[in-house]
C-alpha cells in the first residue's frame, strides 16, 4: 500500500469514526455511559437452558415471597394486626414528639379569609345546659387533692388571646376560624398543676417535671379527650369562649371549648366540664374508635 493510499484510508476511518460518533451521541445510554452486562455468545439451546434455570429460581423465590406477603397479611389474626397498627401509631407519636417544638406556630389568617362555620360532632352536647350555672372543674392541681371549681368570669379574667387559624378535621377538610379565649398555658400558670417531683411547677424552665397528660371531658362525660402536656401548653392552644366575633353557640361548644391548630378537631373538645392534669395516659373517645391517640400536627 502506498503512503498516499494509507493516508486516504486513515482519513476514511477518521471520517467513519466521526459519523459513528454523531450516531452514538444520539443515544442517551451512550451519553450517560450506561454499561451492559452480556454473557459470552451461546447457542440457542444453551441460552434456552440457562434461562429456564434462571426462571425456575426467580419465579419460585418471587412467588414464595408474594404468597408469604399476601397470606401472611390476610391470615394475621385481627388482634395481632390491630396491635401492629396501633403500635405503629404510637411509634409515629414518639417520632412526632421527638421533633415537637412549642416555638413553631401555625400560620394566622386575615379576617377576610374566615370560612363559613361548619358544625361537626355533637357528642356530649345532648343535654340542655344553662351557661349561667356552668362551672369548670380542674383536677390534678399542685397542693390540693380535690377539684378547683371556677366560673367563666374567672376564666375571662385571664389574659384574652385572639387568633385566626385553620381548624383541621381528621375527615380531611379545614376551615379558617377566628377565636378568642384564654391560652391554656395561662390557665396553667394561674392554677398550678401538680408535678412528678412534688415541687412547685415551673412551666418555663422545668417542663419535664409536669405530669405528662391532660384529660378533658364534657359535663355528662360522654365525650372525653386526652392531650399530651406539651401540645396543650402550645401558645396557640386556647380555651375559647368566642368564635368569629360572637360568644360560642351551643352547637360550637358553649360556654367553653378547646381550640388549637396543634391537633385535629376531634381533640378540640366542646363544652368542657372538667380538666385534669394526670400522669396516666387519659382515655380518648376517638382513639377508642380506632383513631390515633396523638392526632397531632
Amino acid at each position, binding site marked *: 500500500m502506498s503512503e498516499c493510499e494509507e493516508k486516504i484510508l486513515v482519513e476514511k476511518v477518521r471520517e467513519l469514526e466521526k459519523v459513528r460518533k454523531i450516531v452514538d451521541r444520539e*443515544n*442517551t445510554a451512550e451519553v450517560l455511559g*450506561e*454499561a451492559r452486562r452480556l454473557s*459470552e455468545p451461546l447457542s440457542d439451546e444453551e441460552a434456552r437452558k440457562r434461562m429456564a434455570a434462571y426462571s425456575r429460581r426467580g419465579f419460585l423465590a418471587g412467588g414464595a415471597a408474594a404468597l408469604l406477603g399476601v397470606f401472611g397479611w390476610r391470615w394475621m389474626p385481627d388482634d395481632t394486626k390491630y396491635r401492629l397498627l396501633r403500635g405503629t401509631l404510637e411509634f409515629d407519636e414518639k417520632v412526632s414528639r421527638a421533633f415537637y417544638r412549642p416555638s413553631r406556630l401555625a400560620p394566622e389568617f386575615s379576617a377576610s379569609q374566615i370560612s363559613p362555620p361548619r358544625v361537626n360532632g355533637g357528642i356530649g352536647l345532648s343535654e340542655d345546659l344553662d351557661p349561667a350555672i356552668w362551672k369548670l372543674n380542674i383536677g390534678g392541681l399542685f397542693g390540693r387533692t380535690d377539684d378547683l371549681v371556677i366560673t367563666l368570669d374567672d376564666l375571662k379574667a385571664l389574659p384574652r388571646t385572639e387568633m385566626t387559624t*385553620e381548624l383541621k378535621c381528621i375527615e380531611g377538610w379545614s376551615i379558617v376560624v377566628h377565636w378568642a379565649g384564654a391560652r391554656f398555658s395561662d390557665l396553667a400558670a394561674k392554677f398550678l398543676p401538680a408535678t412528678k417531683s412534688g415541687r412547685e411547677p415551673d412551666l418555663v424552665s422545668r417542663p419535664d417535671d409536669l405530669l405528662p397528660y391532660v384529660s378533658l371531658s364534657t359535663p355528662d362525660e360522654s365525650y372525653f379527650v386526652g392531650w399530651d402536656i406539651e401540645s396543650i401548653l402550645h401558645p396557640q392552644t386556647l380555651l375559647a369562649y368566642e368564635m368569629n366575633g360572637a360568644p360560642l353557640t351551643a352547637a360550637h361548644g358553649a360556654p367553653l371549648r378547646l381550640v388549637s391548630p396543634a391537633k385535629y378537631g376531634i381533640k378540640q373538645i366542646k363544652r368542657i366540664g372538667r380538666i385534669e392534669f394526670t400522669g396516666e395516659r387519659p382515655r380518648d373517645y376517638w382513639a377508642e*374508635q380506632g383513631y390515633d391517640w396523638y392526632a397531632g400536627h
Partner: protein
Amino acid sequence: MAKRIENKHPLAIRWLHWINFPMLLMMIWSGLLIYWANAVYGFRIFGYELLHFFPPWFYETLNIPFRLAEGLQLHFFFMWLFAVNGVIYVIYLAVSGEWRSILPVPASFKRAAFVALKDLHFVKTLPPQGKYNDAQRIAYTAVILMGAGSVITGLAIYKPLQLGWLTALLGGYEWARWEHFWLMILFVLFFVVHVVQVAVAGWSNFRSMVTGREVVDENAAVSIQPEPIP
C-alpha cells in the same frame, strides 16, 4: 444465530421494584379510605365537572365508605415501608451506577416523542437506546419524583404545624392535600400505561424483571461496550 444472555436488572432493583408494588397499592387503597371522608376533588373544564372523584358506584363496589380510621392506621403504617423502600431504591441507583440507565438527558424529550410515534404506529423505527428508551427514562425518573412528591406533600398534611414551612412552600394545607391527591392519580395513570406497555413488550421482557436476565442476539447493542459478566 448465536445468542447472549444479558444481565439486565440487578437483584436489588428487582426486589425493590416488586416490593414497591404492594406498598404503593396499600398507600393508594388506604388513601381512598381516607379520601372518602372528604371527597371534594374532580376533573373540571370551564367550571364544568366532567368527572368527580369518585362516583358512588366506585365506593360501593370497593366497599370504601366509613373506614376512615382503618385507612389512617394503614396509611401511617405503610408510609414507612413505602418511603424506606423508595429511599433505598434511589440510594442504590446512585451508588451502583444504574442511574445511567434511567436518567434522561435534555435531548431525551425529542427522542421520547419519536418513541411515542413508534408506539402509535406512525413511524417504523425507534431512536437508538440502551436498556430503556428515552420515553421510559422520562417515565421512570418522573415516577421517582412523584414518589418523593407524595412523601413531601404527605408530610405537609401530616404535620402542618411542626412542618409549617413545608406546608407553606406547597401553598398551604388545602393545596398540599390537593397535590397529594393528584399525585395519586398520576401514579394510577403511570400504573395503567406501565402494565399495558409490559403486556405489549411481551413475556421475555416481563420475565427479565423476575429473573434479571434476557436473551439477546449476539450482535445486539454494538454501540455500547459490553462488560463481561464475571
